[in-house]
Each structure stands twice: as structure tokens, then as C-alpha cells.
């Protein structure tokens, strides 16, 4: 399959290794991947903060870049959630029926990585090796917006050498919430505190998730506390092999 990568601005700029890992996994499974250079940002930050007019050009851009793609895959549940859940509303706001149609046409071909692997490709074992104790945090948008279900866990369970431990109160939000983390920093950190407490109770070395945004928040808190637990994106664990470990 010809897969178009939507790396997302966040991963492109801050977490290039996650993008590289996704490339590695998809190529290992025998697919060819392309990266359209014109891509930028899905517009989630603008839309969710209320700058909805400003989202319109970004939606146009996304649709323009990916309209002919066979499949668009992104290593971010919340960016894909933005595309799937809110792009139709942005098109409506733009009062542009052509854009609305283009959005409707493209949406079924846009996937989050774990969902794409498990539900679309039917692959649960990607041939990864990762001999570490790991706990998985189901991010809110992966869980409740995209409903990825246990796709990430199926993939993780098939990783050789992994010691996967269940996270208590896993489904509770970590407190990131985009600009919420800054606008309501006090409340955000109170939520993060409980998430970190639960992560540490598992004795894991690594906390993983399908979103680097939540992991930046959790990982930033862990690092500040010198918590001895690292936040690592799911794609990077799946890319790791015995020959080329993470």
C-alpha cells in the first residue's frame, strides 16, 4: 500500500524520532511511504482554543495535500481526532460545500497508527523487541474520540521481551488538554500529579501512549521530579528491534 505520512507539526518539530519510527514500522511491513512536504498542522490547537476562523486555511491545506492519498496515517490520536471529528464542522463554518465534500471524501482514509495497523492492516505483531517494563496510558482522544479500543495494547502485547503492566485508573485524563495545560495550569498539574502517582505505582521504566502531546506533559512532569520513568511514544517501541534497539 502507498501510505501518505501525516507527521503532524508537533512531532515534526519536537519529536522527529516518532515520525522516523513510524516510517520504520510501515516499511518493515512492506509498505511504501511518502511524506508530502506541503503538510503543516491539523489546526487542533487553534480550533480547540476558539480560533476557529484561523483553522479554515489549515483544513483547506490538509485536504489539498492529502486528497489523492490511498491512506493517510499519523502517529497522533488527537490530531486524527481533530480531523475526523471537527473538520466537517470547520467546513460548515467556512460555508464552503466543496470543502465539505472534499472533507467527507477524505475522512475515511485518515488513520491513527495503531488503529491503522490493527484494524486496517490486520497486523498485531510488527516484529518489535523491547525488553523493558512498560505501562500504557490510553489518551483521552484515542480512547473516547477515536475509539481505538485495545489496538495499542494488542500491538504492545506482541512485542518481544516487553513487561507490560496495567496502569491504575488508566482512563483518567493526564491533565494536558492542549492550551488547558497553560490556561488552567494549576488544575492541569493537579491532574498530572495523580497520573504520575499511578505510573510510579507500576514500577515501570517507560510510560507509553498514542500521543506525544500528553506524553510531553507527563514526561515533562516526570523529568522535573527526576522520576526515573521515561515517556516514549508507542511508535518508537514498535520500531525497536534486537538489531536496532531504541
Amino acid at each position, binding site marked *: 500500500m502507498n501510505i501518505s505520512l501525516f507527521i503532524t507539526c508537533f512531532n*515534526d518539530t519536537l519529536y522527529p524520532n516518532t515520525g522516523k519510527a513510524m516510517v520504520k514500522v510501515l516499511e518493515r511491513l512492506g509498505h511504501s511511504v511518502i511524506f508530502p*512536504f506541503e503538510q503543516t*498542522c491539523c489546526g487542533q490547537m487553534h*480550533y*480547540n482554543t476558539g480560533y476557529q*476562523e484561523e483553522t479554515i486555511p489549515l483544513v483547506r491545506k490538509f485536504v489539498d495535500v492529502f486528497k489523492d492519498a490511498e491512506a493517510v496515517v499519523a502517529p497522533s490520536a488527537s490530531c486524527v481526532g481533530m480531523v475526523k471529528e471537527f473538520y466537517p464542522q470547520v467546513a460548515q463554518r467556512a460555508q464552503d460545500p466543496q470543502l465539505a465534500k472534499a472533507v467527507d471524501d477524505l475522512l475515511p482514509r485518515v488513520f491513527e497508527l495503531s488503529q491503522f495497523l490493527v484494524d486496517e492492516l490486520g497486523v498485531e505483531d510488527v516484529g518489535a523487541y523491547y525488553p523493558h517494563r512498560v505501562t500504557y496510558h490510553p489518551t483521552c482522544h484515542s480512547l473516547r474520540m477515536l475509539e481505538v479500543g485495545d489496538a495499542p495494547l494488542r500491538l504492545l502485547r506482541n512485542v518481544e521481551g516487553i513487561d507490560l503492566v496495567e496502569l491504575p485508573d488508566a482512563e483518567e485524563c493526564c491533565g494536558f488538554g492542549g*492550551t488547558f495545560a497553560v490556561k*488552567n495550569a494549576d488544575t492541569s498539574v493537579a*491532574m498530572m500529579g495523580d497520573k504520575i502517582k499511578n505510573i510510579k505505582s507500576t514500577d515501570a521504566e517507560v510510560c507509553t501512549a498514542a500521543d506525544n502531546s500528553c506524553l510531553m506533559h507527563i514526561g515533562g512532569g516526570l523529568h*522535573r521530579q527526576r522520576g526515573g520513568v521515561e515517556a516514549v511514544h508507542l511508535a518508537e517501541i514498535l520500531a525497536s528491534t534486537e538489531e536496532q534497539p531504541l
Partner: protein
Amino acid sequence: MSKQQTPTFQETAASYLDDTQLRRNIGHATQTIRGKRKGVVQEMPDWEALREAGRALKTKTMRHLDDYLLQLEESVQEAGGTVHWARDAEEANRIIVDLVKQEQVKEAVKVKSITTDEIGLNKALAAEGIQALETDLAELIVQLAEDEPSHILVPAIHKNRAEIKALFKEKLDADELTDRPEDLAEAARLYLRKKFLNAKVGISGANFGVAETGTVSVVESEGNGRMCTTLPDTLITLMGIEKVVPKWKDLEVFMQLLPRSATAERMNPYNSFWTGTTENDGPQNFHLVLLDNGRTKVLADEMGRQTLNCIRCSACLNVCPVYERTGGHAYHSVYPGPIGAILTPQLKGLEDEGAASLPYASSLCGACYEVCPVKINIPEVLVHLRGKVIDKKKKEGSLRDKLEPEHVGMKILSRAFSNAKRYERAQKIARTGQGLFARDGMISSLPGYLSKWTSTRDLKAIPDQTFREWWRQRDE
């Protein structure tokens, strides 16, 4: 609601987060109730179908609200009741105060009702020398403590047994009191029973008003509501116009959805239904006051109107990670939690700074939507309202508003993101700009807007190579 500016959520949340007793009380209570709710919901094989039925019924009702309200008026009058229409809080208060004054009493017993809190009825009555006595145990606690409710269903959720014991000892002259729930309830019972038996006027809210039959309903757990709606000669019920349901049989759906979502019970303990008046049985005068107070404005908003579907179960409060940590008072509204964060700004209007801050008091985690028995998509409405807040700021905001770092940043980034070349340039500028702050790939201190991040968390620094730079290299 008053025109006075309320404080913003951001401003006051910290003080509530610092209240360790409050954190413990609310954390314990919400965790317990959400565990129980999960249990009684999971045992229902048709729960999702019921939610969908609830949503569909409410949506239909809102679509023809005018017709159903007129039908309700006619049915209530036919059954011997009187119907009053109140445009806003002021008008509703005037109507109710006048009705109570006609009965020449100095005291009225009240069923727990948030709608009466919304209009500030107790204050309006007090101004005329009439004491409104709260008879719901938790409302009584809040009233005696001269406090405000902090939860839609469990107004005293922020208080624990020891605090209640101390309060009752002081206010109810109950010297020999322990903090056992039975003893606390008994002390309240002894105090209230006398009040019920002497009451001439009862005041209630309403959970439902059936257009077809004129039947009005109050759903409660303690039986005090039953006393208030049956013992006094005169019963005055304040009902938000969105509480109307078309048919009697529609209650079948809501009477299943409500108790399981609210108190995690299979069936609600006290369900009172009355239709007008009955000779020599119960109140001989029944007044139904129908309240708008901003509701028709909410109805006019295509996206926002689903907020009116709310049946006040408060399941969304109990699962909300924000509410669980700040408690209800941080919302500065009688409607706290996720539903309050969308209802309050729509009822009060975004001119109120406190109300305009509420759509941001959420991480958009979606737990509220997942449990809502009538499927109100709260995150979607939150985002919609944020859009309105920003649109308003763009149109009417001061220069200072427009120079806020977030506002400026969003504008710049929107321009940068709409063109790949500009976007790459912005990446490079950011990477150079962080130079002073980054150490070993992490940033632990930033000035200004982003200091809110770095005061408690480290921030990942931008690495030397972006993904696209790597890809370009790989292609070569």
C-alpha cells in the same frame, strides 16, 4: 442571574486545589459514586438504546417547545392549577414572592431545587421578611452553614461527617450528637418534622412537566420533597421551560436513565407526581411558574441547544477530572462541573468574565459525554463556546486583549501554518530562539506565557533536526 461580574475559574481554582479537606471529601465521594454508576449501568443490556431514546425525546421536545409549553399550560389549568410565565429571574421572584405574601406567612418549606437557586429565590423572599427553609438534608446543611451548594445533586458533597456534626451541634442545639450518618439524619429529621407539620406554603422545582396530562414531578431520595408537595395548602413550583416532556409514557425512559446516572440506584426512592389539585387531598392551590431566564436564547443556538436536554443527573460532575479536583465552588455558578461549564455561559452570556472562562475549565477529555444519559456532546459545545469567546474578543476586545501572548501567538502561528515555507522558517526561528533556555534537550524555565508550563514541568526542547529535514536528507 445577577449582572455582577463573577471571578474566573482560573483565578480561584488554585485556592480550592489547595484545600486538602475539600480534595479528600470530593475525591472520595465522586470516586465512590462513579464506581457504583458503572455497575448499575453495565447491568442494563439496553442502556445505549435508552440513552438514544432520551436524546431523541429531548431533541423532539426542543424542536416543538412552544407547542408543548402551551399544551402544558392548558393541561395544568384544566386540572385546577394556575400557570405563570416568567421571562427572567426578577419576574419569577416577583411572582413567587407575591404568591407567598398572599398566604400571609413568614415561612415556606422548600424542596431541593437548583432552579430556585438560579434565580436567587431565597434572597428575594428574605428581602420581604419570608424565610425559605431548605428541607433536603444536604441543602439544609448548606443553608445552616451559610454556604453555597457545590454539586447539582449532592449540594454538600464538599463537607464530611465531622464538619456536619459540628454544624448541627451549633445550629440545631443537638448537644449529644455523634458523626454517625443515622444520628445526623435523625437530628435533621426532628428539626424538620415540626416545620413540615406547620407549613402553609411549599416551594419546589420540577424534574418533569408532562404536556399531555399536566402532571408535574419531583424526584428525590429522602421523602422531604413528598412532605413539601403534599402537606402545605399552597404549592408553588418553579420549572425551567426545558423540563417539559410531551407524553406521560415518555417518563418511562427518563425514570430509568435518571436514577442510575444520578445516584447509581436502579429505582429512585421518592417519585412524586401530581396533576393540578384534588379536593381535600394535598395542596388546594397549585401554581406552576414557567421560567425562561435565558433558555430561549440557548434554544436559538443550533449547536448549543443540546445543553437544554440536561436532566440534571450530575453524572458528568462525578466523572470530571477537573471537578473532582477543584470542587463546585470554583465554577461560581449554581451549575458547576461540565454541564455548568456549557450551561452557565449560555444563560449568563459571555459578557460575564467568570462565565466566559468556564468553557476553558476542561481538558476536553470527553468523560462527561461518555456518561451523559441524554448524550449531550459536552466537549463539542465547550469548543463551540470557546469559538464564541474568541469571536467576541476579536470584535469587541480591547487593545490589551489583542496583545495577549496567546492571541498574538495564535494569529502568528495560523499564518505560519498555512504555508509550508513559512512554517519551516518558524521552526528554525523557534529552534534558534530556545538556545538560551535548552539544556540536554530539555527546557526547565521560560519567561512569560510559557512560564505557566515550566513552573511545574520541564519542556522538551526542539531537537537539531526536524522530521522533514531528516526526510530530505534520506531522499538525497
